[in-house]
């Protein structure tokens, strides 16, 4: 059984304007998958649908054997905790320190304080920011902010890490560091889905590449390249 299955997904934000048109693919547990395509192709919509931030017009998304449209509102927080998300604009809270920005992911599930004190330094160490724990986001570079966002996404040990254009706002060296971290996380068994239009990164990693153009899935290749 695949971990994630997109079955004949169609999504419209405006009537008769299809952002995704009959898209189907599946992702196995532990895979590293790029979803590529030009701006407006529908990459972010794939992620929004997976997070159930948007309703579906038709089709089914199956996560661990369960249709996510059937998840009850009270079950949604638990579902969201299975998916760590990293965004292009980091979505960090400027008023909180790096430590607190990560800890918030655990506080929302009323985690034990001792557990927070153990987990937060561990994930900060994984992204190489343990010595920046008391910094505020405005004191960090773009790459460092993205690493904090990754640490926060990892705090409750998600089954999947989703990165939506995670390298879109940072310099190439920092982008390489981010990708290295994502590979490391993937090597530890977490499925990584990265939406990107960064050709350099996609070509460098030679992972599975799902290409979407004008809402349609145009190619799905293992060891793929951006233009292959």
């Amino acid at each position, binding site marked *: 059984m695949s971990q994630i299955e997109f079955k004949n997904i169609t999504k419209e934000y405006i009537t008769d304007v299809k952002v995704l048109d009959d898209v189907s693919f599946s992702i196995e547990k532990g895979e590293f998958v790029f979803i590529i395509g030009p701006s407006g192709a529908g990459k972010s919509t794939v992620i929004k649908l997976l997070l159930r931030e948007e309703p579906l017009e038709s089709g089914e998304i199956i996560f661990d054997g369960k249709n996510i449209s059937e998840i009850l509102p009270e079950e949604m927080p638990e579902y969201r*905790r299975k998916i760590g998300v990293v965004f292009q604009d980091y*979505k960090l809270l400027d*008023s909180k320190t790096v430590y607190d920005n990560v800890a918030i992911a655990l506080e929302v599930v009323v985690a034990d304080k001792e557990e927070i004190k153990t987990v937060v330094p561990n994930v900060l160490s994984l992204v190489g920011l343990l010595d920046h724990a008391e910094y505020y986001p405005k004191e960090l570079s773009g790459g460092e902010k993205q690493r904090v966002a990754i640490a926060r996404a990892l705090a409750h040990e998600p089954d999947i890490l989703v990165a939506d254009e995670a390298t879109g706002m940072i310099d190439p060296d920092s982008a390489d560091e981010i990708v290295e971290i994502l590979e490391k996380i993937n090597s530890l068994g977490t499925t990584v889905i990265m939406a990107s239009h960064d050709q350099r990164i996609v070509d460098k990693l030679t992972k599975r590449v799902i290409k979407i153009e004008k809402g349609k899935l145009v190619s799905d290749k293992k060891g793929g390249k951006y233009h292959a």
Partner: protein
Amino acid sequence: MPKLWENLRTYLKKEKLMTLSHFLVMGITFLVLGIFINVIVLSQTMLRYLEEQAQITVFFKDEFGEDRIIPFRDQLVSDERVAEVTYVSKEDALRIFKEINEDQPVLLESISASVLPASIEIKTMDISDLEALSNELGQKEGVEEVRFYKDVIERFRTVSNTVYIVGAVLVVIFFVISYSVIVSSLRTAINSRGSELEVMKLVGASDPYVKKPFIYQGVFFSVTSALAASVLTILLDFGLSKWDVFSKGFSFGFLPGVFISPVIFSLILSLILVISGFLLGYFGSNAAVKKYLKY
């Protein structure tokens, strides 16, 4: 609880201007509500006092002597509609006349007790009985004239009922306005923390976890504002009590004949305002945060 209190303190410190505006808007709303309830009760009390002055005066013929008036009075005392009966003899009438006209000695010289009629003043339990009683007394033997200021009493009653009904409707409207003010005030506070809520939902926060700080904040703002408004209404009613404006106390339209001290009334009103503050804060913040809870 300590974490919620800490969050609230951080918010109050960080958003001083917004905090001030919340307190002002909510405080003024509760104060207006409190003053409004006060005005209704004061107008009801004034009308009750005026109604209490409403009476029938029965004047007797000269040949109808005191020996016959006293049994007439005693018969009235036993009537369940009657609250108070006062006998004014010819001598009493002269004394009252002299008190009223003490600056007119010429007039007083020409008046003696024999020319003034003896009378009985009657107050009823319910002013609606005045007219029927007046008609009955007019038929009695020995009665020269019955004076009953029907128009004035009817006007009292109309004004009293109008103030009561309009007042009750306006209090309900004011509650709705207070609720809207609180919801919009809290929504402003919540919108300013939109990114924090977005992150919370992103990392899988449950609805109660997201809601709790805002409900705590909403209840804190509205209860504190209601308390401040209560202090001002207590001071107002304390002043009325000290100046002894209403010697018997305040009255309510729905509780005829019941009077309570202005200070006790203000304490009850404060309790009502604080409970309203709690309920409006609780339900208002719930409504304000609702749109952030949709999955």
